[in-house]
């Protein structure tokens, strides 16, 4: 044994703390570390989320889009169903800043239309002498703000007697840009109702199955199996055909989202169930059971917080599915209709592909759809990463 020890007359060749060992001393934390360890779960999530640059920017973009929901009337230069007989199928007007080398501020050139009887389409000629500067914080045609107050204040309007169709107009001369801004109202909100319903059902049924197991579990499992076995879209169609036709289109769509919510929960329920199954076995949950907590308390107080973050992330990922679902329904003529305006309704104009080759700006609604769906997906990814306690 002794030959393994260093010779006593030599200094050891590595560092040895000369201080005597003090068993009561604790490691000093840096203020950052301290903050981290004492922060709540939500705060940590927020910090982690902030590191995910793409997700943060997506969040910002979404907030901007959602601003259109309450303030559509003020942001849009026209009301969505306002028609202009002189500008049917008008192409988008380009914004200019300089006229003849002179700075004027944002303006458009006026244009005139006539029918080309040979090809039977509207032809537009831009008039380079007609400079129409945009007006800001102006009054345009009147509208009812939130359907309540008559107002005419707008962020931006066309010049007096001029036009401002930055995304072109459709076959009846309705401004597409305004349509998009108003369309956000329905497209971005109504789907959320469906998600709320499906989350509620998913958590409830998944929770019941996961916590109680046994008969309840296998019944709910069968139910999930049945729901998943039915293809969604045809089911949606059949159910929508069953809604009373005397309903207004918005109500029909509202009904459809509720139906979708009613059909969409099995995925979530499965996730909730398996999470619960594993969390239930954790020590703290067992402890709670042994201390005599009732199932309700255990589920909501101890188990649910364990995967709330997961739920938020999965919700943010289902919203884009709702938005896309709406456009698909409009394509099949089952969704919303004018005078209601949504992105699906606007995109419906683009379903005749040959028309789109003549009037390409009818495709414009696809841009916000892609942006919003992308943003929701990135946001969801960021949230999920942030919510994962193991990263």
């Amino acid at each position: 044994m002794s030959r393994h020890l260093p010779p006593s007359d030599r200094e050891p060749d590595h560092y040895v703390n000369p201080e005597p060992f003090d068993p009561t001393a604790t490691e000093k934390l840096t203020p950052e570390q301290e903050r981290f360890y004492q922060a709540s779960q939500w705060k940590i999530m927020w910090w982690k989320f902030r590191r995910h640059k793409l997700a943060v920017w997506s969040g910002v973009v979404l907030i901007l889009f959602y601003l259109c929901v309450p303030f559509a009337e003020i942001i849009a230069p026209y009301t969505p169903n306002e028609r202009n007989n002189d500008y049917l199928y008008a192409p988008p007007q380009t914004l200019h800043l300089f006229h003849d080398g002179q700075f004027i501020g944002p303006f458009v050139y006026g244009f005139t239309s006539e029918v080309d009887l040979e090809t039977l389409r509207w032809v537009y000629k831009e008039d380079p002498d007609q400079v129409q500067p945009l007006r800001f914080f102006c009054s345009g045609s009147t509208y009812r703000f939130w359907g309540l107050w008559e107002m005419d204040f707008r962020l931006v309007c066309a010049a007096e007697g001029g036009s401002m169709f930055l995304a072109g107009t459709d076959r009846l001369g309705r401004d597409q840009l305004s349509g998009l801004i108003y369309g956000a109202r329905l497209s971005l909100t109504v789907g959320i109702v469906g998600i709320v319903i499906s989350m509620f059902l998913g958590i409830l049924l998944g929770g019941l199955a996961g916590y109680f197991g046994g008969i309840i579990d296998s019944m709910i499992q069968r139910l999930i199996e049945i729901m998943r076995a039915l293809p969604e879209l045809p089911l949606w169609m059949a159910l929508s055909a069953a809604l009373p036709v005397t309903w207004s289109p918005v109500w029909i769509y509202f009904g459809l989202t509720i139906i979708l919510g009613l059909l969409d929960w099995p995925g979530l329920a499965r996730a909730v169930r398996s999470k619960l199954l594993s969390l239930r076995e954790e020590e703290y949950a067992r402890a709670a059971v042994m201390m005599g907590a009732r199932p309700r308390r255990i589920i909501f107080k101890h188990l649910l917080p364990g995967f709330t973050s997961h739920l938020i992330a999965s919700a943010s990922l289902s919203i884009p599915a709702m938005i896309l679902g709406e456009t698909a329904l409009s394509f099949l003529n089952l969704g919303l209709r004018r005078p209601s305006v949504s992105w699906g309704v606007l995109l419906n104009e683009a379903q005749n592909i040959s028309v789109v080759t003549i009037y390409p700006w009818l495709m414009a609604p696809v841009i916000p759809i892609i942006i919003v769906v992308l943003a929701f997906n990135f946001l969801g990814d960021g949230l999920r990463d942030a919510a994962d306690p193991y990263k």
Partner: protein
Amino acid sequence: MKTSGLFKGVAAAILISWAGTAGAFTMTPTPGIAEGLPPTSERAPVDPLVTNMTEIGRTTGKQGGELRTLVGRTKDARLINVWGYARLVGYTEDLELRPDILKDVQVEEGRIFTLTLRRGHKWSDGHPFTSEDFRFWFEDVLTNDALNPWGMPSFLLVDGQPPRFEVIDEITVRYTWDKPNPLFLPELAKSRPPFIYRPAHYLKQFHENYGDPQVIEDMTATYKVRSWAPLFNKLDDMYNARNSELPSLQPWVLTEEGDDRRIVFTRNPYFHRFDSEGQQLPYINRVVMTVADGKLIPAKTQAGESDLQARNLSFSDISVLKRGEASEGYKTNLWLSTKGSQVALLPNLAVKDPVWRKLNQDVRFRHALSLGIDRNMINKVLYFGLAHPSNDTVLEMSPLYKDDYAKDWAAFDPEKANALLDEIGLVERRNDGTRLLPDGRPLEIIIESSGESRAQDDAIELVAETWKELGIRAFLKPSQRDTIRNRAMSGDLVMAVWSGFENGVPTADMPPVDYAPTRGDFLSWAPWGDYYETDGQSGEKPDWAPANRLMELYDAWLASSTKEERAQIWHEMLQIHADETIHIGLVNQVRQPVVVKGLSNVPETGIYGWDPGSHFGIHRMDAFFFTEQD
């Protein structure tokens, strides 16, 4: 015996032209038919229908070629029998009735119809077509309780009495009623005719009274039907072109080639029409229908995938079609729709709500609504100004047309309209300017649409805009056909948007059935039509004088025996419609694109309609031919 010469002159003319060209007329062999068939002269009737193409403004063509066209559903295979338009009697392009399959029709006192067939005329399988085929239908199909438990169709009944049917000889049959039956011949010329003749030699094998019971039993098993009657009904489908074995008299017959996505028809080698050069018609050998989704058809047409296309193309496709013309080498002809109005508003005169009923029945209200529509603006926005602003009435090309029918109360005059509304007593207004009904409700009209036509929905939006100036709010409610019909019948419907009269080009000889409350599916007065249809069993009796008068006139037409009498009845009915503005028509004579690729003899302009018209039918699709053939 007094003979009214309805068809005498025509038949004689055909015979003369036949005799006149007899020297030069030798029948040439027909290309593209199955081998081993007898020569043309033995296949053709002794006295075929010979058309001198230059006399009807066409050119003599060349036989051969395969025509590609697109349809929206497999079911549309039946269109071949509409386009082919071989009828016992059929309309010409000028909408005159002429014998076609028949050699001659003699009408006595408007009630005795003697039909003469062409001697030697054969079914598409080569079996002679004789009076036996008429007898078989009348005695063994129509009056067989198992095949047809529902009794005679209405065009065969006069005062509820069926005709007496006689076979005179092998090529002559006669139908006799006690009173005139003006419905009989127009019915035979319809785009979906009643087919009062059937290929007896083929169908008898499946008929209880004739066929071999063992064969029938085997067949019922193969076709998974339960007895001989459904089997017979399934195989006996002269219109739908589903049974390739069923002999036909039409220019093209179904082949066994192809499937549900591609339907192939080939020429009938026994067809009875010839051109004056002795070439058997139709010129085109084969017609191939490809089934494509209706929404894709304009794009496919634009890509040059159809040689003749009108189905599933609409006015709004014209700009697209025009664009493809140069690169794909087709031409877009613009025909005229024959509808009385492309878009019409139909106030329900039999609405249940008493306030609305009073208002809808008030002629001043309907006038005000009509005067409050800027038809020129609608024409410009929706139709590039190419349609005609008009009431829902007959078109200019109809011999019954008068300017007043189209123009009365159809000018945009909001001032007058407002004055009329004030006169009715609708003077109270809500703070936003909307007038109030006598019971205090706002004057908001829910206009229900079938949701199938975007032009209709757009038109309502434009109408609502100008109605606002009258203090009337209009809302569009897209719904479904059946729902609207049911709501009309129950009296819940206040107003609907629909297309106008189906037949905008009537002659006096065509029944004015659309113009009076004769049917339960007319949205202006469904319960009244039901009352008439069921002889008072259901529905309700009209409580509105003009409707009663229209009914009387329609009944008078049914009993009429001369053309003059009928014309007079027609004019009175049209005048009532013009005075009362029963339908509020917007525009008519909308262009129907007809895309033609490499075909000759397709008219540049023509009328496009279902009944009369049969789409290409009256324009003699059998005379269309390919200019360039490979």
